[in-house]
């Protein structure tokens, strides 16, 4: 199929172990100064030797099993030799011709709808190099500063077959993979720099281009979109796509050719003589996998009645799925559907807008908010407003109020005829006087009366049959009641009033 986009991904994730892959340095380096999580081994001092972290293999095997891979009878570590300032031994200990596992798959929602299997070529373990900070200027001289805190952090590398056909599918694959790794408790996606992606892209019939240095989920789709456009443009102009390695520059959203002196690295792989082979295939049997995203999605549909799309969204992130279940747990029958829509359609958007994590939202507070909505104390619009207040309070490090408190403080209680009945009932209960609805002025009716007086033009339009006029008038009423009026009530009463007027 000419013009078909072919994408394969190589994903590197930091495994969430306590110590490094080949030494005992703690992996919790992000808040500490440079070169404070370093020992002779990960510094690459002469005479030092690696000792393998067992948990890193256990974690990697969990991943291999979850991705339906076959673990090799015998796997081993190899040296990948090249010179670079962040690689202190001048070789990376990785796995080459005998990786931990091969031949699995991950299912994603394909572009054409339905489940699509993306095949996994291999899964292996390797060490992270150090971190470089580039300094200096052209005139005063450029140099680099090296921090070895990251050197030796365990990485899992997951290589896919070139089964993806669009940037969207690539993003879905990456999201599914990320979620799976988090469900397995082997990966923390919130840690900065914990995930890196290299992509291989070609247009069928043309050469393959490798794009390196993609470090964010959004970046993957951007990089691929740019690269595909670039390649298609070349072909359209009758030019050839060169087989090369390009770097993704996130800030500019472009890929750039890496013209370095070594065209093709000759890594001179050979088995790491300081490490012994791994014969761990028998461990697979004893690995008990937790509930994975697909199974959880199906359970959400069956147990909570979520739609497929919402279930996908909710289970697509471990924290989100846990949040959902905690929120509905006090009363699933009542809260499930409400939570489903409110989280999927509203909360996520509000969090993304503020660049906030689901972790900051107190599930109990959210349950409370849903309760108010369920009881009809506030309208949906007010609900959103309350949510925004809560999130903004978090963002601005202010004390967080309970939803009910916010409702009362901002006077957001729903205004409607039935609501009035409630208030009247409250009053009569207090005073012992029978409620007389007629003497209570209905704020909605008041607002409607005011609007009809203020908007004669719209009323005329409505009489003439202009459809938009009704909605306009509804909007004006909602404005007057500051969103506290129940829309259903407003519609009903406005229609009645208009009927009275002239229809």
């Amino acid at each position, binding site marked *: 199929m000419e013009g078909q986009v072919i994408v394969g991904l190589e994903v590197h994730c930091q495994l969430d172990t306590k110590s490094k892959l080949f030494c005992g340095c703690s992996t919790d380096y992000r808040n500490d100064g440079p070169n404070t999580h370093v020992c002779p081994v990960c*510094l690459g*001092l*002469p*005479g030092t*030797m690696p000792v393998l972290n067992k948990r890193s293999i256990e974690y990697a095997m969990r991943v291999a099993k979850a991705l339906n891979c076959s673990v090799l009878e015998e796997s081993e570590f190899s040296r990948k030799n090249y*010179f670079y300032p962040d690689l202190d031994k001048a070789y990376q200990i990785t796995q080459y011709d005998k990786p931990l596992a091969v031949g699995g798959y991950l299912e994603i929602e394909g572009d054409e709808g339905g489940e699509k299997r993306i095949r996994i070529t291999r899964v292996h373990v390797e060490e992270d190099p150090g971190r470089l900070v580039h300094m200096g200027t052209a005139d005063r001289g450029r*140099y680099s500063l090296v921090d070895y805190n990251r050197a030796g952090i365990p990485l899992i590398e997951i290589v896919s077959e070139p089964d993806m056909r669009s940037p969207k599918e690539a993003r879905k694959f990456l999201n599914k993979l990320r979620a799976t790794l988090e469900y397995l408790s082997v990966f923390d996606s919130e840690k900065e720099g914990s995930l890196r992606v290299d992509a291989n892209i070609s247009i069928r019939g043309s050469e393959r281009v490798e794009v390196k240095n993609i470090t964010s989920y959004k970046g993957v789709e951007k990089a691929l979109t740019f690269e595909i456009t670039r390649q298609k443009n070349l072909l359209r102009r009758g030019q050839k796509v060169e087989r090369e390695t390009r770097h993704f520059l996130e800030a500019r959203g472009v890929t750039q050719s890496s013209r370095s002196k070594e065209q093709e690295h000759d890594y*001179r792989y*050979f088995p790491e003589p300081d490490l012994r082979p791994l014969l761990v295939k028998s461990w697979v049997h004893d690995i008990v996998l937790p509930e994975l995203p697909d199974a959880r999605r199906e359970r959400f549909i069956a147990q909570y009645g979520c739609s497929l799309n919402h279930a996908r969204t909710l289970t697509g992130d471990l924290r989100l799925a846990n949040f959902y279940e905690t929120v509905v747990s006090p009363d699933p029958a009542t809260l499930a559907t409400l939570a489903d829509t409110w989280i999927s359609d509203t909360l996520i958007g509000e969090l993304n807008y503020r660049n906030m994590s689901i972790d900051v939202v107190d599930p109990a507070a959210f349950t409370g908010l849903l309760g108010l909505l369920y009881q009809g104390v506030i309208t949906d619009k007010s609900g959103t407003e309350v949510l925004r207040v809560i999130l903004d309070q978090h963002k601005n490090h202010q004390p967080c109020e309970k939803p009910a408190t916010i409702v009362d403080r901002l006077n957001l209680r729903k205004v409607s005829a039935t609501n009035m009945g409630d208030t009247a009932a409250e009053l009569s209960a207090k005073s012992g006087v029978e409620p007389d609805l007629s003497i209570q002025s209905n704020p909605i009716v008041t607002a409607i009366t005011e609007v009809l007086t203020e908007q004669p033009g719209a009323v005329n339009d409505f009489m003439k049959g202009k459809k938009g006029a009704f909605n306009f008038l509804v909007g004006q009423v909602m404005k007057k009641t500051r969103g506290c009026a129940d829309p259903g009530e407003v519609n009903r009463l406005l229609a009645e009033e208009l009927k009275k007027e002239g229809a």
Partner: protein
Amino acid sequence: MEAHTLTFEPDDRYNAFLTTCKNAPHGDGTLGGVAVAVKDNISTQGIETTCASKILKGYIPPYDAHVVGLLRQSGAAIVGKTNMDEFGMGTTTENSAFGPTLNPHDTGRVPGGSSGGSAAAIASGMVRMALGTDTGGSIRCPAAFCGIVGLKPTYGRVSRYGLIAYANSLEQIGPMGKNVTDVSTLMGVIAGYDRRDSTSHDRPYTHTPSADITGMRIGIPQEYFGAGVDPAVAGVVTQAIGRLEELGATTVSCSIPSMEYALAAYYVTCTCEASSNLARFDGVRYGPAADTKKSWHDAFKEVRRAGFGIEVRRRIMLGTFALSSGYYGKYYAKAQIARENVKKDFARIFSEVDVLAGPTMPTIAFKLGEKSDPLSMYLTDILTVPVNLAGIPAISVPCGRVAGMPVGLQIMGRPWEDERVVDAAYAYEQAVS
């Protein structure tokens, strides 16, 4: 442990030492107060460790090698770091960046290598014991040339943590001394499991040498007495083996066909591993400074060309070539098959005999500057490298002289039978002393 100090100010006319510790601290214990020298490729905390190379001049390790820790625990006084062929690459200690070591028996001759400094220090009486390392004969060769005793332990018996690597799959740290008893005592201190070395086995050594070798079956490999071995040397060694027979051992002729390619397999393996091990010397974290104003590759190349001697550069390049794209199958992969064949040959022979005996080196110590051609130098390792390829233990014990120069008798044994190899050497030593 009580703290003492040993004063060490030797008259080092042989250039055996690169660093000496004038006031060497020590404690009590098995080696309490014993002056022990350490080869300069073994990391010693706070003491300059150079591997006899300019590229590590001034490098002070912030940690001790595992065996150095064990030495300190045993009360030994670490009195200095000994000269060697640069990074262990050589058979004569002429490849040191800081001048060759001279053979105390004849200062116009080499002491052997690469642990020439340790051997000369013992032979001249400066120290009683020393640590050496043996990758392809680097303990046994200088022991033979200097007339002392040196043991290469079974691979994995002594921790390599802290040994600045030359060829990881071949080398071992081992004891050197004036006599077999001292070598055995030192072996007892350094052998044993180290969790920081993933190739380390849990095999401590607690043996007292025994001179009783009645019934010991000794194999005489014909390749050790063939062409290329000086007849005078072969003669002396044959006589020595005769003494062992008099002590109750029996001998039987045997053959190691894989010797034909053992040397090639050795040099391919060690150069490949070395090319990778030495890639880390870049003047950034240690060693002479890289010029940070230059570009990375230019600075890197400059540091290495200035810091590495010609033999080191040669071996790095051989290894780089052998591992390069397209050549792995021809060289490194084949070398590992060859190794497996060597192991199988030994295993086959050891089902018939208990030890093998032969000369350690094909000649007596060469004159300084005599072997200028690298290949002819490599060929002198022919009798020592099979042991490293197979990972078996082997000892060299002095067994006579030719033209006034010492000759070494080499005893090789089954994996983990270092004790038996020591016993055979001890029996001989006791018989002739």
